[in-house]
């Protein structure tokens, strides 16, 4: 199964992850 997130964000939004990273619920994906 997969979850796709699509969202609008300001230009200064940055992902804090990399492709292939293992993540857990509540872990930071991105921030402003």
């Amino acid at each position, binding site marked *: 199964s997969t979850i796709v997130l699509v969202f609008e964000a*300001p230009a200064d939004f940055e992902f804090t992850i990399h492709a292939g990273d293992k*993540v857990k619920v*509540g872990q930071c994906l991105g921030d402003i």
Partner: protein
Amino acid sequence: VITAWTSTPTKWYPLPLAVGALLLVAIQYRRKVRNSAKEVEVDEEGREVIKLKGPWHVHVIGALPLRNMSRLWGYVNSLELPVWFRPYGYRLYAYAFGCNLDEIEPSDLRSYPSLGAFFYRKLKDGARPVDPAVLVSPADGTILHFGTIDQDYMRVEQVKGITYHLDALLGVERPGSPVAMVEHNRDASTVDDQEFAIVNGIEYTLEQLIGGSGTSSEESSTPSTPPNEVADDSDHPDPHAPPKKFGQRIDASVVEPERNTTAHDASVALEMGVKPALERKYSTGARNVRPGNTLHFAVIYLAPGDYHRFHSPTAWVVEKRRHFVGELFSVSPWMAKRLENLFVLNERVALLGRWKYGFFGMVPVGATNVGSIKVNFDQTLRTNVRGRPPPPGTYTEAVYSNASPILRGQPLTPAEEMGGFCLG
């Protein structure tokens, strides 16, 4: 052979010009055929026709009755296991797929009657600390891909070099839809210095909004739109009519929430800047991005051993859901690299709404082994049911405008449990 290979003299001579010209023609022809295969086929309305595209083994998998296999898989895994066998069976499963049994609740493995129940296990309170960032992971899994969406082309990259259209993933926004309706009624809803708000003629104080000493809005007044009534059904087609074309909405209903508290609404409202739905300058939607903002996407893959419930990735309001019945291909990274339009072909539930920066969408996508998607606040949703799937792109839609008269949708706080994937 060795003697012939070593002792035969090599004699070089020029090819005739015609052979060289023929070779160039053949190369050009091959390149043209490859490029034409990559061209997007569109219907009479100019929308991309979603078809199964990929190497031969993808077509072989596509010929299998995946939906029936998925339901059979679900049935087998719902069978009750002998109590004595459960600890051994689940420990073996956990060992094979890397599950952490220390964090599950309840921890007694004998309390899970079937593998399906164990698969949909809960976690202990506090097992997943929540980061204060604006966006957190909605699930345990692996990041497959992420990035920005070019708003000129509106295409999302599945993997490097393979893209699909955002409209095909989320559905096409139509005039008369709930988001458009809220925007249309904007003049009737005003906020005065954030001290009180008038929503469709009903006055709310800030205390009512944030759950202070005042009575809740549910107690003090009722929303102007009665429950279970579609607020604007002028654009809703006959729910029993068959889908005619790509992107057609084939049903519309308003879902009654199980329970919502004003305090819960307020916690979301405060995180969103208090005035969502009341004083919005821009209609939310993937095609209504505010000036200076960008559309982003992220794809998280849940492996068989991962915790399979999903949570809210931020403070947001879900305005509607669109259920796309489709195929149930595997969504493993191996398949994602080979099958074009994988996330558009598969059965999925697009939850669409807004957060404090504008549009927000979350799309749980089913797969062969996990074809059933549950959404806690939507008891009417049924996925992976028997029957031939409608053409790709058609969907059923439900709106959550009655869930909260303040927020005009289902409010969610960061990391709040939303639902999950079940076996089969």
